[in-house]
């Protein structure tokens, strides 16, 4: 039987939760707090941080597995992986620029918010690579789900449930991730002079090609200058990335060039390509004004341009990643503008998240879509099963939950 005992740090977390549950006192759950500006503000007297839970506990490059405590800074993990010639598959963004917090984000925070970067379309989301999780529930119990193997369908997949739950179902203490070799080379085609519709058509053709495109974004005129290496390109620019061995990058970009090139197309090799996609990953083209709100809308890729068009009259603008399916938006932080974004996403049967706004706005509006009543009932029951006293990050995702 393998039932590892709770670590000392987990015992301490469990003790805090036990006491808070008994007193019915809400806890703010965070790592370094870099994402505390996301979603709804939490009203809590006390903060429970995973900051002290730091360190990589297992790295087995040959088995494509890395395990680390939740409070480990992500950059430490990225460094360790780079030394092993590997990388984080989902390419999680660093949103410190957007969220105005320059502390290093933790692995636990990235997993708890299921944030994925541009590679999402080809290789999956953060949640797709969480193989195992340890967490302390609102019942002050240490539970494990998953493991350290790539395939696992043993029992209900609580890894999926906890990933993206923003600390509302349990305090994640340790995470086991699938990792992969980092491709030795990358390259990008920058196709200028394309409006959103034409840009997404080009991205769709690239993603529908046999060449395993791992990045597909569109940046509108006026925002192109915020992406390094694109200066001087006219109009909106569609970006198509390949990551492979050098000969494959060259061959595949050559074939894509034949199919997609327009006048002025630029080919970026490994280093400039990496700089471009770091900027796209971190939403650098968005550059919101100091007081503006930021939204992340997810729709089917072909609907991205329609969302942009629908929100434009409300003074909301943005750019597209994930082949058009991820719409990054920024605009005035008020309820009417928020309603316009919500309506545009809903009209395309998509989903959305208010990623950044002043507390007054994000405390007052829906920050993610409401669930239909029958599903909301299940949400409440599942939340109650893991956090019966309702003390873990209450109200973070939904008001009153």
């Amino acid at each position: 039987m393998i039932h590892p005992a709770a670590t000392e740090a987990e015992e301490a977390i469990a003790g805090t939760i036990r006491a808070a549950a008994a007193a019915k006192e809400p806890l703010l759950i965070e790592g370094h707090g870099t994402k505390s500006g996301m979603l709804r503000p939490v009203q809590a007297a006390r903060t429970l941080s995973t900051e002290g839970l730091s360190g990589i506990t297992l790295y087995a490059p040959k088995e494509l597995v890395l395990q680390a405590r939740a409070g480990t800074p992500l950059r430490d993990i990225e460094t360790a992986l780079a030394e092993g010639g590997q990388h984080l598959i989902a390419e999680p963004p660093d949103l410190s620029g957007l969220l105005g917090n320059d502390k290093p984000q933790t692995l636990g925070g990235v997993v708890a918010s299921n944030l994925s970067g541009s590679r999402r379309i080809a290789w999956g989301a953060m949640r797709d690579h969480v193989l195992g999780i340890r967490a302390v529930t609102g019942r002050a119990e240490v539970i494990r789900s998953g493991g350290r193997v790539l395939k696992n369908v043993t029992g209900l997949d609580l890894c999926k449930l906890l990933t993206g739950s923003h600390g509302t179902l349990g305090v994640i203490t340790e995470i086991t991730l699938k990792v992969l070799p980092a491709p030795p080379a990358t390259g990008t085609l920058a196709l200028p002079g394309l409006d959103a519709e034409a840009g997404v058509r080009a991205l769709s053709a690239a993603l529908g090609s046999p060449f395993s495109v791992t990045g597909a974004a569109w940046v509108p005129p006026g925002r192109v200058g915020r992406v390094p290496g694109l200066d001087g390109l006219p109009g909106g620019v569609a970006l198509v990335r390949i990551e492979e061995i050098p000969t494959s990058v060259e061959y595949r970009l050559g074939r894509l060039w034949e199919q997609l090139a327009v006048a002025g197309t630029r080919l970026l090799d490994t280093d400039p390509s990496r700089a471009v996609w770091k900027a796209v990953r971190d939403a650098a083209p968005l550059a919101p004004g100091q007081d503006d709100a930021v939204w992340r809308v997810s729709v089917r890729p072909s609907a991205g341009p329609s969302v942009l068009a629908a929100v434009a009259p409300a003074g909301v603008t943005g750019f597209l990643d994930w082949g058009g399916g991820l719409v990054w938006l920024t605009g005035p932080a008020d309820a009417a503008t928020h309603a316009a974004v919500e309506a545009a996403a809903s009209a395309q049967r998509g989903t959305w998240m208010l990623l950044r706004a002043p507390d007054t706005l994000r405390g007052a509006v829906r920050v993610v879509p409401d669930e239909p009543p029958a599903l909301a009932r299940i949400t409440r029951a599942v939340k109650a099963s893991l956090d019966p006293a309702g003390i873990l990050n209450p109200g973070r995702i939904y008001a009153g939950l």
Partner: protein
Amino acid sequence: MIRQPDPKPDVLARRDTIVAGLRALLPEDAVIAEARLLKPYETDGLSAYRQVPLAVALPDTTEQVAAILAFCHRNGVRVIPRGAGTSLSGGALPLEDAVVLGMMRMNRILDINYADRCATVQAGVTNIGITNAVAADGFFYAPDPSSQLACMIGGNVGMNSGGAHCLKYGVTANNLLGLTIVTIDGEVLDIGGDHLDAAGYDWLGLLTGAEGQLAVVTEVTVRILRAPEGARAMLAAFKSNEIAGACVDAIISSGIIPVALEFMDRPAIHACEAFAHAGYPLDAEAMLIIEVEGCQAEQDHLLREIAAICDRFDPISLKVSQSEEESLAIWKGRKGAFGAVGRISPDYLCMDGTIPTSRLPEVLRRIQEMSDSYGLKVANIFHAGDGNLHPLIMFDANDPASFHKAEQFGADILTLCVEVGGCLTGEHGVGVEKRDLMQVQFAPHELEQQRRIKSAFDPDWLLNPSKVFPLQAETATQAGLKRAA
């Protein structure tokens, strides 16, 4: 025979009323209640266990599924969702007092969207049926379980099915965008849709691999991918399991991710060769099938690199396919493995543990020791890229002692998998087969937490009962719930 929960006497007593109630909801030919016609539904791919159900309902719309579930919920009737019945873990084994909800009539492809690279299909469409529908346009649906000709996408969602190409393309969960589900009280819900990463809790992820415990899946939106320009396989044979295992490590360490990396041990090589005449080396202790993708030049490059790595491990033979025909020949033996083992043994159990790949030689050695001590032969097939081990335990079903020993042997293997850091099931699911072993992998309070989540969806435990969770505990939870109520 595996222990099953006691049938509810009141449900058995109301059998005729329940059948009449179902008939009132569905077309004439969509309810089966005659003993002779119920017989085909008594078992699934785990054919050692059989139980004729109370009745079978065969809906062909989501609305009919909702009506059936609402009816069963009102009447306290247990429901067993069933696709093609290919489960190797008894995931669709009926109960005497249960209605089998057969999804095979819901076999329509509803939408194919190439611009957004997704397709929406009903739950009873076969796995290969999705690929067949988009293949002419150069697309495919990635997960490819061995049973893909027969198994249905609804069952794939239930078991989070994988296949031989997971290392690159992932399992079912990684290839889904949306589900239409029906809850036990007959509510129809859309989960996800045609976009990525819905906000809120990841119901899509939780429902995938839930083995029909939480809801019934009626429609599925999957990602479809453009097929690569080509694929080619090579075969490498080695003098020992240890050497072949070290070669797998070296390939992964080189940074190359082959699209498939399959391992066969000596008994598997012999069984497959006798069956398929694929030209496998009979003097080898272990063999790898390695497949790469890309254009001709990319395939050449990758296969050359991999062959150079294999060369460092003193291979007995190394065969790089030069054409699609030669690749098919290399795969032919492996793909026929189940049939091949079926030919040398009247019956076999196909196990499905997962282990850290580094522990493979040790695990194979200990399986061989168990094989000697139980006096039962075993052949091992291993998805080496993702650690998924399929020992095929050969036995004679006409001899109850032989079957009992085979089950014990299987349980010992899975316990070993957990002991070395792996898990009970990689892609077949827990079903009835492994439910009592869940206590090997999970502590009591961890199982209790999973059961609470089951209860959040299905408070009366009507959906696919007696699967996944140890039986004793299941009745205890229900008793606990009743006390709490």
